[in-house]
């Protein structure tokens, strides 16, 4: 071992790929490999001078937020920041996968082969969104099992919107147009969220969402410019989905207990009311184009604020639905629990197979 020059790299040395992080993205350069005897040695090879320092972690955290830097999983963060994120990201993940249910209801009854493959692709995307978000939440130190358990036992919340039923095909159009539209508005903002893994998941999700909204609006145009019965069906869907969609942005700022911290920590960058206002401004002209009427008698353009004045949704109903008493809460929870239970044998078989091949032990260290 004294004569290291005579040793061929690769003889005893372990090739180690090195990764570096650049503006929130983890880059793996193809060619950067170093040789080291162990993982620890690989790390210390480039870590030449580690100085003991008195570090104020809170200052570092605050200064990162002030500079619009991202917080990454291994960074120090206040406990409440971590808790807030786990709650928000897991609720978001639950919403994605519970959101598959009301639309999934129409896959077998989609009116054409084209609309069926489109709906399948959309619902599959929502499943994917749930998975991106669960793994983002897991970087904060919770396990997938804990997260799913919280959903299945009813301990965790998900967006109240998915507790409403999809009664007609027009509802599938209205969901894409309004519900995905509202989700996009929220998610575009969250792309700049201060937590790196959440922000990166949002960037992916936003890229996929725009097709969701467009396919929904396309369904609405077909119905709104179709027969009088079809137009009526579209109007009825708008009537039923308008207010529940407005609730998606959360309670008014004055009654929103979590908003203040979320803004302070730059998890959110705009308040519930700001987003709701923007949604109304954007959506009303789209309804007008369809020749449909937004079910709000108070809706008027306000020149001074360059936005619409509109009626608030029924916040008592919102509370009730959140607390489990919406039209479909029990049904949704049962569907999730059944799916999880019915999938248990698949997970067990996959685990047994991996074990038989001797893989899982090597990996799960």
């Amino acid at each position: 071992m004294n004569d290291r020059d005579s040793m061929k790299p690769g003889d005893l040395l372990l090739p180690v790929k090195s990764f570096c992080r650049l503006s929130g993205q983890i880059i793996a350069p193809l060619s950067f490999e170093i040789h080291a005897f162990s993982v620890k040695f690989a790390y210390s090879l480039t870590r030449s001078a580690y100085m003991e320092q008195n570090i104020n972690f809170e200052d570092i955290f605050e200064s990162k937020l002030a500079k619009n830097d991202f917080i990454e999983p291994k960074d120090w963060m206040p406990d409440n920041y971590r808790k807030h994120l786990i709650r928000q990201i897991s609720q978001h993940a639950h919403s994605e996968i519970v959101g598959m249910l009301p639309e999934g209801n129409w896959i077998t009854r989609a009116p054409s082969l084209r609309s069926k493959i489109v709906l399948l692709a959309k619902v599959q995307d929502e499943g994917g969104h749930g998975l991106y978000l669960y793994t983002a939440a897991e970087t904060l130190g919770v396990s997938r099992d804990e997260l799913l358990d919280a959903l299945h036992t009813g301990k965790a919340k998900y967006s109240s919107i998915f507790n409403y039923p999809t009664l007609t095909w027009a509802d599938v159009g209205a969901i894409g147009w309004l519900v995905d539209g509202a989700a996009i508005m929220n998610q575009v903002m969250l792309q700049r969220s201060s937590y790196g893994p959440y922000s990166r998941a949002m960037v992916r999700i936003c890229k996929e969402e725009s097709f969701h909204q467009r396919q929904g609006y396309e369904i609405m145009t077909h119905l709104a410019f179709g027969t009088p019965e079809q137009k009526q069906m579209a109007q009825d869907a708008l009537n039923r989905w308008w207010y529940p969609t407005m609730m998606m942005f959360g309670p008014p700022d004055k009654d929103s207990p979590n908003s203040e911290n979320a803004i302070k920590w730059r998890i959110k960058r705009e308040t519930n009311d700001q987003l709701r206002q923007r949604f109304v401004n954007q959506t009303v002209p789209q309804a007008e184009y369809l020749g449909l009427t937004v079910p709000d008698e108070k809706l008027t353009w306000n020149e001074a604020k360059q936005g619409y004045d509109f009626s608030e949704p029924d916040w008592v109903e919102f509370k009730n639905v959140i607390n489990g008493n919406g039209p479909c809460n029990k049904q949704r929870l049962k569907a999730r629990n059944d799916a999880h239970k019915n999938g248990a044998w698949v997970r067990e078989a996959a685990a047994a197979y991996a074990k038989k091949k001797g893989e899982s032990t090597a990996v799960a260290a």
Partner: protein
Amino acid sequence: MSDSQGPVWEVFVQRKSGQPFVHCGSLHAFDKEMALQNARDLYTRRGEGMALWVVPSSAIVASSPEDMGPFFEPANDKVYRHPTFYQIPDAIKHM
């Protein structure tokens, strides 16, 4: 972390041939084969890549944020590693 969903894997995707593999997210899978298939279904539904790596998360070694300064410090004062450090006569082209 392993649970009833299997261990966590990190996914790297190469967009086009010749480009670096870029981390795009994580997933759960029970073995290598499933990790690769899940990565395809989850991260390349729209032709985002033409090659994938999946790596058990437990195999990733990461630097700690606390020593970010000292850890990367050795590079900071070595301006001579950059081409602009050197003076080349104006008459010389293509260098």
